[in-house]
């Protein structure tokens, strides 16, 4: 469903962020993307959402080459992809429900349908009782759950999470990861870039490890680093 073929990315300033990266992710998989800072994890995610184009190679989403997408098709690709960031990116002047509805308004769904889906998604992330509350009245973990709700409210086929636990304490981090697992169980592919070794090691999911723009390890039941694996 997500296919990278010999993808290289050189940014305008000459930085080589990716160097001949190849991997495939099937529908329904849960994948951790690990690696030191600057190894190119966020770049991989930005290539999937087509915020960036590959300098060389091909990125296919559901069999479609993202470079070939026209300007009018890109929004439709993005409606099938949910994205979550470390810094939540909620709109402070909108309530929780309005923040989640934001993603559906763009698709011009009928108002009643929006209401229905927002309510059921807030139920899913466990924030049904906070619908009318503003983001600053929530804890970091709750804010991240709102941002996850916004990412999945449109039933995307894939959820991309870029260090979603980066700003959270271990307890809240676990909450978020369990939520991502629940979403994954409902059939959504999840790709999570993270520095959180405890979570990666505990979950024993597929791990794609990157270093200096290359994929250095791709294991089906992997851990955060080689050493960690050796010590088990």
């Amino acid at each position: 469903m997500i296919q990278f073929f010999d993808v290289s990315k050189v940014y305008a300033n000459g930085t080589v962020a990716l160097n001949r990266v190849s991997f495939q992710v099937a529908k329904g998989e849960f994948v951790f993307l690990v690696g030191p800072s600057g190894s190119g994890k966020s770049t991989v995610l930005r290539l999937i959402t087509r915020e960036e184009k590959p300098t060389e190679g091909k990125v296919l989403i559901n069999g479609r080459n993202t470079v070939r997408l026209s300007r009018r098709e890109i929004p439709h690709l993005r409606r099938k992809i949910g994205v979550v960031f470390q810094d939540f990116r909620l709109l402070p002047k909108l309530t929780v429900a309005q923040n989640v509805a934001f993603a559906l308004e763009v698709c011009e769904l009928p108002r009643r349908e929006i209401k229905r889906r927002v309510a059921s998604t807030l139920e899913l992330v466990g924030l049904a009782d906070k619908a009318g509350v503003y983001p600053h009245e929530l804890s970091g973990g709750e804010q991240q759950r709102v941002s996850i709700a916004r990412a999945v409210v449109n039933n995307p086929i894939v959820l991309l999470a870029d260090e979603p636990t980066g700003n959270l304490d271990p307890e809240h981090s676990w909450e978020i990861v369990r939520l991502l697992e629940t979403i994954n169980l409902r059939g959504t592919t999840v790709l999570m870039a993270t520095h959180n070794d405890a979570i990666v090691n505990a979950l024993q999911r597929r791990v794609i490890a990157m270093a200096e723009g290359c994929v250095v390890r791709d294991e089906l039941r992997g851990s955060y680093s080689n050493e960690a694996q050796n010590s088990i």
Partner: protein
Amino acid sequence: MKLRTAFRLAGEGMANLRTRSGMGLTAVTIITLAFVIQGLFIIAFLNLNSLDESLTQRLQMRVFLRDRANPVAVGEALSRFPEVEAITFVGKDEALENLRLQLGERSDLLDLMTENPLPDTFVIKVNDPYALPQLAEQIRSFPEVEEVVYGQESLGKLLDLVTLISRFSLLGMVVIFLATLFIAVNTIRLTVIARKTEIEIRKLVGATSGYIRAPFVFEGIYMGLVSAGLASLAGDFLYRFLLTRVPTALPFLPILPREVVVPQMVAALFGLGLVMGIVGSWLSVRKYLK
């Protein structure tokens, strides 16, 4: 885009303007002032154009033929001059009829005459006022021609001046328009920057460019239309004032009636306001849509 969505985004544009109302008010004030000047340029332009036209009409030459001259042959000879733009033939009977109409009640004077004293006449329009004297000289030498008369040459100089001023006012209109566009772009850009996160999230959740742009386009349109409306009121007021003063202060200057000028000025201002709003907002968000 669905109509319902368009309405919602139109409301959002209004909200954008209201939350930054201080800035919006400043921009609308400046744009209104600029549009008032724009309106004055439009007023000047329309009047100068009509003056230009009436002056050009006066730049005509009358060629009176001798009795028994053949008008067809002369007409052909006249139309061969390159300076001649148009020729109209006024036969002596027609000329008499015209005279009768001009005299009105006193036309019975004409009944005293036993035969028509008026000659066959050609009315010639020239394309270059400066060619008049020389052309008249040449035509006078035709044996069939009795006399040639034409308007003053000085009219030509005046015409040149009027054309120049009217071109200048057109240039002024362009400059003012660009200035208002500049103000609109920079005002809307401030809103765009304030809404950067929203734009980013909208892009990420799959909003089309049109959807993202819409609130800003509406914001621009509101600014343009409000400014155009206020400037129209001011322009109408100013024109009515001019109409009370110009005829007495400068009696030789013909000035068009309000019914002719004001509707055209209002239409032009609203058109410019609309274009300014749309183009301005387009330019302001362009950078953030890539």
